[in-house]
């Protein structure tokens, strides 16, 4: 026991020492941990490179949900170019979408996501950046962000009309003032105009990274904005807006140094991303879900031409087919039909040839490719399998081909439409020149005079499946409500083909008969011209049930 006593005393000393170290040694620093795997906002935006990597976030990822389905459902299906009638997606085709439709909601959320990315830079970056870099650099980045915000708002305004203007989410959260009313469409246009003016003023003149915004992107978009505003012919400023649209368009055409791509189909090759005609495009890459263009997967007809393929039921409407003039070189790049050959697809087997039906060689009673109601499938933005494009297509709906939001041909036609102005017809030489440049590339005869419908139909084909046609319909509608509604009701998007069993070979046109009521005709009402705000949003913010108010600019 005596021996133990000594032993014990020594041990106690150690234990007590340890305890003191344990209790006091762990000082406050122990609890100060910042993330080890990511940067913290307050320690970023210190150099120009860091600021540029901030604005780099605005070009692809945030646009995904908008682009994934909503953009083409609303832009192409709803406008009568694309035939697709199934399930909730088909609601756009029928203009019968309801407010619970998740694609509708994705479109709304997706565009506001773009706005919030831009706002995060506009509001958070200068505070930190100005301590380290010049105001000029800060403004250049702000210009990029404000352009992107303007683009998102332009699209919001054309689909929904009245939407809330959000400039600074953080402030709204801090002041607990988050329920915003809808703002009037004219306020939204004014907001876009201010953003674009700022962008034109401050944008980097020496942009060297293809795909980033230039002053020409901003000038092109402001031309489109003025054109849109001008088409409300009742607006006393309409004439002035037409002039502004024309001026800006001409500035871009003459001074930007950009040129039309000589071959229309080259515009949509992945290797031609950010070509000489591109003014602004969603910058897609193949880096997993939500980084790429999902159209290849959503639109591709069959497994012969793509790794992911949900386009079996999709094609261009008969109405669209009828507006394409014979000999139009663009047709084959827009949709594929009997006998079309595409050497760039299915390269492994020496290219792809379109047949209405292709039986399965293993099990001939089954088809591996079948006809749809409109006897064609979508081609534009379908670039094939991974092997066809050097691995530029992933299997996660992530193809690397960009989607245009503004290209030079658009500016050409903006000029033509602005020249026409409120009049019934124009023979303006410059306007005809730009207009016919587009037709020439399409292999079509030039026109000698232009009506609104000439330009409208030209745009419809030129930008088919680029989801722009709804905006054209909207300008038509602003110009003449009744005519536009009558036009939509005269569309024959409900036509389709059915099999004539008397002809044995399905791969002939004779084997198919046009039915004028393949599905029941679609009635379009004036109330269809603006999309409903998604139900989930109205639920959160009941102010949306009230009338829109003008935005108070600072």
């Amino acid at each position, binding site marked *: 026991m005596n021996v133990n006593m000594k032993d014990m005393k020594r041990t106690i000393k150690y234990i007590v020492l340890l305890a003191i170290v344990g209790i006091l040694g762990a000082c406050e620093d122990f609890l100060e941990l910042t993330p080890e795997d990511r940067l913290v906002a307050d320690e970023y935006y210190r150099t120009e490179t860091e600021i540029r990597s901030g604005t780099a976030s605005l070009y692809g990822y945030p646009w995904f949900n908008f682009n994934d389905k909503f953009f083409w459902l609303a832009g192409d299906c709803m406008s009568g170019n694309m035939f697709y009638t199934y399930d909730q997606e088909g609601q756009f085709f029928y203009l019968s979408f309801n407010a619970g439709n998740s694609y509708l909601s994705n479109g709304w959320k997706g565009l506001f996501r773009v706005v*919030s990315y831009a706002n995060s830079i506009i509001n958070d970056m200068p505070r930190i950046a100005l301590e380290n870099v010049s105001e000029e650099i800060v403004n250049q980045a702000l210009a990029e962000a404000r352009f992107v915000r303007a683009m998102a708002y332009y699209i919001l305004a054309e689909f929904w009309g009245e939407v809330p203007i959000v400039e600074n989410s953080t402030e709204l959260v801090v002041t607990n003032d988050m329920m915003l009313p809808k703002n009037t469409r004219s306020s939204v246009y004014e907001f876009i105009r201010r953003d674009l003016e700022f962008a034109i003023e401050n944008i980097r003149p020496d942009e060297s990274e293809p795909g980033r915004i230039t002053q020409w992107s901003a000038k092109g978009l402001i031309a489109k904005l003025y054109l849109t505003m001008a088409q409300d012919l009742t607006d006393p400023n309409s004439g002035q807006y037409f002039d502004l649209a024309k001026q800006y368009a001409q500035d871009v055409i003459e001074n930007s140094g950009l040129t039309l791509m000589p071959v229309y189909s080259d515009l949509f090759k992945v290797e031609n991303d950010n070509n000489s005609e591109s003014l602004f495009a969603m910058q*897609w890459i193949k880096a997993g879900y939500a980084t790429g263009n999902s159209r290849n997967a959503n639109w591709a007809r069959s497994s012969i031409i793509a790794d992911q393929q949900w386009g079996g039921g999709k094609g261009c409407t008969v109405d669209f087919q009828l507006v394409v003039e014979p000999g139009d070189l663009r047709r084959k790049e827009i949709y594929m039909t009997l006998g079309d050959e595409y050497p760039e697809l299915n390269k492994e087997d020496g290219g792809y040839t379109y047949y209405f039906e292709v039986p399965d060689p293993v099990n001939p009673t089954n088809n591996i490719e079948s006809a749809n109601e409109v006897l064609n499938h979508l081609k534009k933005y379908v670039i094939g399998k991974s092997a066809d494009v050097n691995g530029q297509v992933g299997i996660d709906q992530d193809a690397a081909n960009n989607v245009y939001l503004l290209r030079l041909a658009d500016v050409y036609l903006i000029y033509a439409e602005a020249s026409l102005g409120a009049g019934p017809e124009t023979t303006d030489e410059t306007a005809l020149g730009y207009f016919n440049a587009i037709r020439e590339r399409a292999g079509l005869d030039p026109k000698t005079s232009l009506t609104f419908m000439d330009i409208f139909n030209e745009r419809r084909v030129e930008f088919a499946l680029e989801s722009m046609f709804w905006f054209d319909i909207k300008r038509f509608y602003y110009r003449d409500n009744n005519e536009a509604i009558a036009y939509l009701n005269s569309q024959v998007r409900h036509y389709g083909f059915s099999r004539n069993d008397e002809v044995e070979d399905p791969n002939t046109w004779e084997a198919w008969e046009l039915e004028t009521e393949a599905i029941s005709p679609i009635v379009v009402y004036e109330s269809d011209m603006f999309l409903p705000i998604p139900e*989930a949003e109205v639920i959160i913010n009941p102010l949306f049930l009230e009338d829109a108010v003008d935005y108070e600019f600072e």
Partner: protein
Amino acid sequence: MKLIVVLMILGSLQVQAAGITGGSKLNFNFKDVSIEEIFKEIENQSDYRFLYRNETIENKRVTVNAKNDGIEEVLSRALADADIEFTILENNLVVIKPAAKKLVLQGVTVTGKILSATDNSPLPGVNVVEKGTQNGTVTDLDGNYSIIVAGKESVIAFSFVGFLSEEIVVGDQTTIDVNLTEDILELDQVVVIGYGTMKRSDLTGSVASVSEETLRSTVATNIDQALQGRIAGVQVMQNSGQPGGALTIRIRGASSITGSNEPLYVIDGIPFQGQGTEVSGFDWAGGANGQNRVNPLSTINPNDIVNIEVLKDASASAIYGSQAANGVVLITTKKGEAGTAKVSYNTFFALQTMPKKLDMMDLPEYAEYQTQIMDELNRTNDVSDRYLDPSLLGPGTDWQDEVFRNAWSQSHQISVTGGLEKFDYAVTGSYYDQDGIIIGSGFKRVTGRLNLNGQIRDWLRVGGVITYAKTNEVITLNDGGDGVIMNALKMQPDIPVRNMDGEYAGPDVTYAGSNYNPVALALIRNNTLNRERVFGNVYANAEIIKNLTFKTELGLDNSNLINVAFHPTYQFGAITNDVNKMKQRNEHSFFWIWINTLTYDLTFAEKHNLTIQLFSETQKSLWERVEVTKENFASNEIHVLSQGDNTTNITNGWKDPSSKMSYFGRLNYNYDDRYLATFTLRADGSSKFGPENKWGYFPSGSLAWRISNESFMENVSFVRNLKLRLGYGMVGNHPNESYLYGSSLTQTDSEFGTAYRMEKIANPELKWETTEMYNIGLDMSLIQGKIDFTVDLYNKQTKDMLLRLSAPTYIGGPNPWEDVALPYVNVGKMENKGIELSLTTHNITKSKFNWRTDLTFSLNRNKVKELDEETKIYWEGLYWYSEFQNVTMTTAGKPIGVYYGYVTDGLFTDQQDILDSPVQVQDPATVTEENPNGLNLVDYNTGVWIGDIKFRDLNGDGVINTDDRTVIGNPNPDFTYGFNNSFNYGPLELSINIIGSYGADILNYSRVEIEGMTSLWSNQAATVTNRARTTTIDPAGDPDDPANLIFANPGTDMPRFSTNDVNRNNRMSDRFIEDGTYLRIQNIILGYTLPSEWTRKLFIDRVRIYINAQNVYTFTKYSGYDPEIGAFNQDARRQNFDMGRYPSPRIFSFGLDVDF
């Protein structure tokens, strides 16, 4: 000697009234009572009367049992060591006098064997003492003993922890075998509490235990399963029947809206890490994601556990401070005991089957359905020629039969426990292998464990435990639109599993809604999770001076996991995938904790006992993950990253440390075993909060009054224990994620290289969630412990809930990986109030036959009392599913996560009905100034049609819109219960366990898919054959004119087929809400212990065999697979969402326990 005659008139009157005569058999069970009490009881039960001097029996206490024994026998046992003699006179008078001193002449050797009366197993280590002497021994491993006693008059006392003591007069016997009865009232049982142990009788808080015996009466993969229905106030739901799938455990309701509501698990004193481990789903490979949480507790071998305690109220759990808001589950694992080594082998084999199938359309029904809908859509050309005469078709493929199977599981465990005088050890090893009832799913686990403890000095004890666990899981994707179950339900019955060439078959045509061959998906799309974990702790416990002990303990937990998800190339009919892809996640986490405890025991003035404890605790955890995705693997068979194409490589990494520091103390005070008090105070500091609110303080206090120990209760002999408890405590909840208060930059890939953006809006003032709980409880034990009853009432108030702000999407979104996310804020108040009852009755306690009943009842009422704004609503929905973005609402005045939606009002029967009803789809052409709402648009494609669902216009404004939604269901049950009966008849045991839940609603989302009727190519439920269809009134008239159409099958409640569902028949409405009330025969076990005479010959101490059936039968009206749904990914706002949940299997098992 002058005798004072005491005539107990009252006693004899009672006896006469009861009509009992002399010579009757006595029955009672007394432990440590005064002799007078025994006399009174005998007088109660018979007509004997006693004559004695008070001095003779004064201050003498004895323990005695009587079971149909005669008075002589009873008295000789009772009085043997009290130095008292008795004489029974003819008139039933018993004369008591002090014993005359005797001389011990010669010793008598007595031998015997001590067995447990419960299961006839031998009891080693039983104390065998000659009463009144120091002479004693203990039984050996086989329960045998041998003792030399003074003589025939000697009394041998047999005592053993957990059993009632037994005393036997030697008499003429030389062999005395005794069956000891288990002490059914475990007042002296030591229970584990936070950072220590305590006698059950000293508890002041609400603590419930599940004993090893209960744990053994069910065959559990995971320990949490064993808790189901066993403890009042604890609701256990399996979120998935997937082997290794996560469970939802709610102790007294949910107290957090977005934070975790799972309890804190503490294993042998060390908090268990890793709540809700996640695995990759298949969203990264172009699919949807199902539930992707797996069970962290599945790394624990349930056989290692000897005891589980649940700290339910805050006064018990507040010692865990900021982690205790959801209750604490304390798990104690096996330790060794002094004595010869005991070797046990436990095994079982189980067959699992699918308890229920859904009634889907077979091929003839499907063919008829296809023909009819194609006809409706004018697409008769698209109908397969084979469908023209459905009667010629066979039943087609039953995809449910193809994906479900009968599956086996097996378990083996060996344990060795034992010890020397000052050293004990326990070593266990286990293997468990379970195939899932869905093809391609399974779970395997190997564990090893070592526990050592040694008293190395008189004043110093050291010890430790280390556990190794490895699990391998194969997970099928479920609970989602493209899970195996949902695909099996929706896959067309005309497609075979495989083509003639042996390849997996698929549909001819691909559309967006195409269904993937579920058999192929389950078998070739692989998602495996391998986890490896080493955890344990070491401690030293020193008595520095008398009554002052210091304990220091270090715990470690090191775990690694590899999750490999492989998406192969395939061709299913027209669906192909040419690029295979794999995602591998490697995770490593390391956690350490160091706890120091100083305990001082103080007793003064004899009756005051005080224990003061001071603690310090420091902990840190580090977590890292690497994730690599690659494509173009050379083969679908080899799932190793080197096989993939390097140019497709996407690599990601994460790393996250967190630390915590705490100081706390506890004071226990006990006055005379009558008044008890416990106070604790804890301060917690965490790295997860900003500088403003790093520290949180959590006090608690509780009082208990042991009424039964009061002197006025001495005569109330039927009450053995009566205790009133009062408690208050404050506990906290903190987020799993770090840096919630700040904003970091999120990195994304872009055309211009790596891009950065703000992850979220910051809130530097973020602080702890706080829960205050009040508890009042009563413990009662009546009729010598035959009835045990506990009732607790509680009120739990949570405030400052950590929530991601709910705001319109134009402000930001909830998902930091895609949005500049909204900040976290502390908002609101939530309340849980409830009652818990548990009742145990020992209906029969014969040594040969035992019948025990346990009943638990839990009632909890949850209510959100306040959110950041009065009218604020926090919504939760189902991913991207149309119409299901707002499924549950959480708002002030309502329980958490109630279902919100439209109310249905039958189907439209004809055109007039549509035109007369409130507007669901407006016909703009009918809008006038007088009628701004217009009328319903009657149109097959773009409007309302006959057979569409009519929704109720709740606000009467003539339009069906968002204002017409209301609360349509509550996933929280009204009450839950468990009812358990166990029977022991000699070596046979039988236990039947019933659990139930009443009044919870279920959102049966599966029905949206299988009764939604929007896809032309999906199979549907058989109920769809009776969907609403129209027929012409005038057969010669226009078949498309709605005015000429009426209902063909009046009375049906199944709406029409509609591809676009313009009327929104499939919107969130009471159509898909079902009553989830159920009563389930959860567990039946029948066991038999082989007679030891047989097993002895094989040198085996004990052999027990049993058969067990689990999930035997469920009584419910719920139409889905299983009414026990749980919470989707453990989320309190997504409770009872049935999205093709992996059903819990029915299990039949056969098991064997052998002790050597």
